[in-house]
């Protein structure tokens, strides 16, 4: 758990606080997104966690320990770090890059090489092919995968990610986001993720902290933020169509009515159980039917969704939870 307690950062010679009395609790195993416009203090906030930027006042605690009292190098070796420009070392091979932190920690050679292969497998780069390549031989997406592998090398509990997918084209970005969520489901790291893209925040975040002028204006799950934006600033950041965006966060599996026998609906429209309710709505529009069947991976009918269910699921969320 990472706790910000009344943290303020003001640079010498300036009058405005970049981060202003910020308090925030980041839970273990969650992706916490810091989102906001440029200059809102999100990157500064993140860089204070690994002491790249010292706070002017207030304290930051990791698992109850004030980081001010922890040795800087030891702290950083235990926190994975990924930045937008990735910062891969161009004179080192992919394997050497990934091995950076293990080498600093003094691991044995064969342990490092086994770990490198394991990580390359995790980020879906064939070790035999990619181990000896130099960063300049890789595409942007591949470099970012190596960046993720490098940050994970010593299995840190915490990872800091500063706009990690910002420099990629939209297709590669979406693909890497999906893959990263899959990896996170396995590794359950505590992740602080900085972005200015609210859609990325809604997609990737377990919890989102919306920052404005160095303060947290709203902190909650994506659904909470969509359902009840705290103020006009948050609404503007979301950019409207909140319900449609909420539908994107709900899967068909979550809202469907379970049915046993489905032979009656043989002719109906269908969606996959992992699809979003937005997909279900799109399918209704496409087929002109107000009911769709929900299929599992084996194409067996698991349930059905009616148009009324969709309306309720989204509007209910705003009212009840």
């Amino acid at each position, binding site marked *: 758990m990472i706790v910000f307690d009344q943290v303020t950062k003001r640079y010498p010679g300036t009058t405005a606080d970049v981060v202003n009395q910020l308090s925030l609790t980041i839970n273990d195993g969650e992706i916490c997104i810091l989102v906001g416009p440029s200059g809102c203090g999100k990157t500064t906030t993140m860089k204070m966690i690994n002491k*790249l930027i010292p706070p002017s006042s207030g304290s930051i605690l990791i698992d109850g320990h004030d980081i001010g009292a922890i040795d800087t190098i030891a*702290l950083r*070796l235990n926190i994975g770090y990924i*930045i937008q420009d990735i910062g891969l*070392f161009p*004179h080192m091979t992919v394997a050497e890059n990934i091995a*950076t932190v293990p080498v*600093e920690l003094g691991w044995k050679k064969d342990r490092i090489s086994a770990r490198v292969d394991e990580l390359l497998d995790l980020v879906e780069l064939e070790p035999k092919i990619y181990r000896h390549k130099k960063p300049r031989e890789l595409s942007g997406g591949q470099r970012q995968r190596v960046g993720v592998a490098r940050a994970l090398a010593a299995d840190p509990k915490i990872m800091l990610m500063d706009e990690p997918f910002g420099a990629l084209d939209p297709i590669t970005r979406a693909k890497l986001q999906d893959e990263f969520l899959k990896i996170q489901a396995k590794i359950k790291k505590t992740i602080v993720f900085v972005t200015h893209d609210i859609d990325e925040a809604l997609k990737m975040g377990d919890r989102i902290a919306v920052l404005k002028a160095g303060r947290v204006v709203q902190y909650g799950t994506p659904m909470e933020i969509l359902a009840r934006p705290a103020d006009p600033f948050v609404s503007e950041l979301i950019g409207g169509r909140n319900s449609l965006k909420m539908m994107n966060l709900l899967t068909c599996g979550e809202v469907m009515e379970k049915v046993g026998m489905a032979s009656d609906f043989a002719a109906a429209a269908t969606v996959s159980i992992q699809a979003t309710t937005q997909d279900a709505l799109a399918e209704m529009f496409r087929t002109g039917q107000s009911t769709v069947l929900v299929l599992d991976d084996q194409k067996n009918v698991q349930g059905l969704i009616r148009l009324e269910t969709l309306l309720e699921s989204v509007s209910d969320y705003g009212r009840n939870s």
Partner: protein
Amino acid sequence: MDATASRSLNSLAQVLKLAMLVALGFFLSIYVVENPQDSLVSRLVSYPKIAALLGQHLTIVGISCLLAIVTAVPTGILITRSHLRKWAPKIIGLVNIAQAVPSLAVVALSVGLLGVGSSTAILALWLYSLLPILNNTLTGINELEPSIIEAAHGMGMNPRRILYKIELPLASPLIISGIRTAVTINIGSAILAAFVGGGGLGNLIIAGNNISRWQVVVLGATLPVIMALIADTGFDLFERRWRVKRG
């Protein structure tokens, strides 16, 4: 033709150039020794004499360049460290003054310090080769991608490790090219050592001029030129190898 093939073809051309330069130097020396204009020339120029002067020349260049490397590279590194960075413009300015003075004047002024002899020549040439090495070390380190250094810090490498594993390897091509400039210029400037009793091939130019024998002057002037070209080509080859090895 693929990149590797064209690279090795280029290297081959450089090796040939190197061999031709060496051959040219030998040919010139042999020609003058075997076909002297007159007895004066034959008395002044012999194989052992040329070898001795060449040795002196190379020693002066070697020592002054080595001194320049061991002083300028560490100084260049020091003034990129955050707490000493403010000194960088002052130190560069100081070294720039030495560079702005004509080389003959630097040599002459050094006599005031150390009298005549090869150590005077070495001092002057050392001063003269500081700037390219210092400047390139400074730029090489300062102009690295900031994100690379930030990533290294963020991952928990300490400043010393960052210097040895990241900054120096990445800055090395520029540092080496600074050394290349210094060595090449120094081989030419070392002719001036003769004027302060430091010896070297400049002796031939002075002696040849005194007795008005063109063969001796040409030999004394051409051998350093050939040596400078050899050094330059040698460095070129080395830099290629270095780049290939490091990718």
